[in-house]
């Protein structure tokens, strides 16, 4: 397994060119092309802003609800799109697995990475909003941003490897996953702040790994550093680091599972 993992570094160039192909191909033929990477999150943001500004009352205690939403939705989109796409990536890429000597784990990895690029492309919009609304960003908190990014990358890769490998054998997963992701979205403090959830629920929310990522992003980008209310579970950095360790374990487990099932892919897809 570790041997294969090491081999993976040899395929850097391939991963790189596949990610860029993925990005090029996605918007090829559309008028706005690559700008969709910016426009998509913007439109999503508008929808939520509309709903919570006009249809339902926005949660109290939050001034710039749109900005708050954006801080959570952007990373969530990366996460959920990666999972949904990777669940079918081995089947759609079946041709490669069956006909070319090809390390299959590249496919889910490319999916996660190309969604990461979309996420990064959405960041300038977020920054523009942050500047426009004059958000209280504490420079001392900023170094945590890449840490959160890395943790999320590991977590997403772990899930992507597990899902892609299992979906080959259990096609039903793909259909279930769509609903699971919706539930997961609402079980994460993205459209509501953590402190608005009743304490009895909070306990369960903290079992959700993405809760800690969302809180971290919101803490870094949205809430002033001294807002105790925003901190969720006190001392949130510890939670993030624990999640980092957990994500590493998940990634290794995912890779292990993928490696175990690898030989069956060429026959089953």
């Amino acid at each position, binding site marked *: 397994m570790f041997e294969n993992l090491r081999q993976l570094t040899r395929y850097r160039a*391939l991963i790189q060119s*596949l990610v860029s192909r993925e990005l*090029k191909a996605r918007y090829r033929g559309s008028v706005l092309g690559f700008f969709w990477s910016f426009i998509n999150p913007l439109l999503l943001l508008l929808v939520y802003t509309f709903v919570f500004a006009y249809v339902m009352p926005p949660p109290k205690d939050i001034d710039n609800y749109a900005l708050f939403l954006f801080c959570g939705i952007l990373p969530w989109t990366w996460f959920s799109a990666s999972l949904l796409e990777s669940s079918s990536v081995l089947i759609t890429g079946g041709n490669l697995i069956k006909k*070319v*000597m090809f390390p299959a784990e590249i496919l889910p990895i490319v999916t996660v990475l190309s969604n990461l690029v979309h996420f990064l492309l959405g960041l300038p919009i977020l920054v523009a909003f942050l500047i426009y609304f004059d958000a209280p960003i504490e420079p001392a908190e900023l170094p945590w941003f890449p840490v959160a990014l890395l943790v999320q990358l590991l977590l997403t890769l772990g899930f992507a490897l597990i899902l892609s490998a299992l979906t080959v054998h259990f096609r039903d997963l793909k259909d279930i996953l769509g609903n699971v992701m919706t539930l997961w979205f609402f079980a994460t403090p993205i459209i509501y702040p953590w402190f608005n959830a009743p304490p009895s629920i909070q306990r369960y929310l903290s079992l959700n790994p993405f809760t800690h990522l969302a809180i971290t992003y919101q803490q870094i980008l949205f809430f002033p550093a001294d807002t105790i209310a925003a901190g969720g579970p006190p001392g949130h950095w510890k939670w993030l680091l624990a999640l980092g360790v957990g994500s590493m374990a998940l990634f290794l487990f995912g890779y292990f599972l993928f490696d175990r099932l690898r030989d069956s892919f060429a026959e089953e897809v």
Partner: protein
Amino acid sequence: MPNAIELTNVTKIYRKYARRKQFATLKSALLSGSLIHDLQPEETFPALQGVSFNVPAGGTYAVIGRNGSGKSTALKLVAGITKPTTGTVKVEGRISALIELGAGFHPEISGRENVFINGIMLGLTKREVTQRFDEIVEFAELQQFIDAPVKTYSSGMYMRLGFAVAIHVDPDVLLVDEVLAVGDEGFTHKCLDKFGEFKRRGKTILLVTHSLNLVERFCDEALWLDHGKVRGSGDPKRVVGAYLTDVGKSEEKELARLEAKSEQRAESQEPAVQSPESKVQGLEPSGSVVEDMTRIDEGRWGSREMEITAVTFKTANGEASHIFQSGDPMSIHLSVRAHQAITDFVFGIGIYSAEGVNCYGTNTHLEDLMSVEARGEGEVTFNIESLDLVEGTYKVDVAVHKRDGYPYDYHRLLHTFRVKSRSKEVGIYRPRHAWTFSPSITLKRGE
């Protein structure tokens, strides 16, 4: 010489899952709580059983066999795409597998970008692809279209580009699975030249193909797989010969089975076949009766006062067969039974090509043989001195009817035989012939 490819006692077992299981997998897996346990197969299918062969470095090796004999599985094992269930596969050097051309192409992006990605996928570095790019495009003959998205390519262009990339990977071992049928004639020749060049440069080629000519001409050694087992290996001419004999035998069996089936079907449909009969009878001139019948699909009808109980094709030495060499003698035997003494009867034979073209038709009446009497069991033999037909499958009508066309027993396209020929002429009729040339024109016999 060291071996480039070594397969030792390789067995590959594919798993088959029962249908019920497929629908219930996730639930049952979750309930039983063990994913791995549930991945156990219910049924297995051995694609290869104890196959061993070695290909010396620099050799050109062919694998032949019928569809489903395990050829492609063997190739995939050598390519490392799948792993053997038991046994070992050893390959020395860089492999390029021409298994499915352009497998990694993305339709939305240009040929240029696809060449790069495909090249990297096959193990080249970006710089190596850049160096060979012009050569690849030139080989694929796609200079004009290289910047168009691949989805606009014709299938030939797509294949050519795939082939061009794969062949420029510069492998030590080249695996080819039935891909020579991709381009037009010119491109095929170019591919063969490229293979020849590989051979000269001492590269190893493993070829899976149905093109037996190519095997005989091009390969040093051949392996014949049948149902996942090695049936023969060694000198290509010998292996191909043995394979062809075997194919002939099983074709014979298949034809016999088909014929039995169509006879049976005609038999069981009999009550419903009143309509063609009445249609046939309703037509006044007997000439048009025959014409009309040629439009009717296979079947059997007639009053059965006189019956054709069996039809066999026989070779010169009297053996029943369905396969004949062009130019050989053949005889058609009819076993007939008259249930009462009959005085008005005509025996007829018609031979049709697979496309339904009437190649020949005759009957005893046309040949001025006047019926006198038939009673009880009897035999009718139609002797053909020389079966001068080109290669193909032919269907036969046999009939016994009254002079006015009233059918006693009509077998419409129920019987089939096949003509084989070493040469591949076209048409239907193959006259006995020979070429002669004046001394100023010389030709020599090809390979």
